[in-house]
């Protein structure tokens, strides 16, 4: 990897990259057909595609002579993990609260 790795948030912080993902939810697309949706140059689109690929949000597959971009689950899983983190955080804290209440106060 020539570039420093971006965290999952940085990867999808860019509106163009989010739009690429949005386009890919409908269909897998070649870089050229992706580029048709943007004002920027094809190399610029390629750069975004590379970042999304490195971040695990898309994969690139060669089909015939074309390179197709398609969504990949991995990057999205990292985002889900963040929510999952707080889910288990609260579950363990509430268990602690339960134990604490039960130990401190005689039941009525």
């Amino acid at each position: 990897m020539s570039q420093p790795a971006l965290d999952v948030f940085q990867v999808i912080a860019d509106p163009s990259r989010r739009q690429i993902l949005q386009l890919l939810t409908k269909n897998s697309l070649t870089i050229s057909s992706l580029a048709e949706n943007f004002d920027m140059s094809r190399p610029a689109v390629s750069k975004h595609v590379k970042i999304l690929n490195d971040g695990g949000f898309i994969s690139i597959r060669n089909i015939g002579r074309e390179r197709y971009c398609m969504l990949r689950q991995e990057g999205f899983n990292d985002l889900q993990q963040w929510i999952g983190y707080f889910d288990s955080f609260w579950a363990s804290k509430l268990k602690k609260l339960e134990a604490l209440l039960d130990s401190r106060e005689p039941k009525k």
Partner: protein
Amino acid sequence: MERAIRHTWFFPHSPERVWEYLTKPELLAQWLMESNFRPEVGHRFQFHTKPIVKFNFDGNIYCQVLELEPNKKLVYSWKGGNGKGEVSLDSLVTWTLAAKNGGTELQLVHSGFKGFRNFMSYIIMNQGWLKIAKRFLKNLNQSAHVPTGA
């Protein structure tokens, strides 16, 4: 449609008693975290937990009491980031207490997550993508034109 974390617990104790554990800093410290909490709408307080580098989170949680109804409801904001001004977490914690069967039903809703620099709402809105992507991949894999070793 919004994804939220929800936990409902029953405690065989009165709402008043449970409320104390939600609002007294010395009691909060025993099960949740050390904080400078005060049961006062508008009061800002902080929690500290372990940083998670991967998620750009420095472990500091910044909160503000938004709603307070003694023994019934407590709402505070729950924000965090990398400590350099970038907010990666902008959410809301809502506690609801209800007297039930001689005890208290406590409900926690941790919602919003719209922070995430707004990514989460994007992802949530597009949760259908996985199905679409899977269907597409399946079709693709079944297609005779796909070179397997490419």
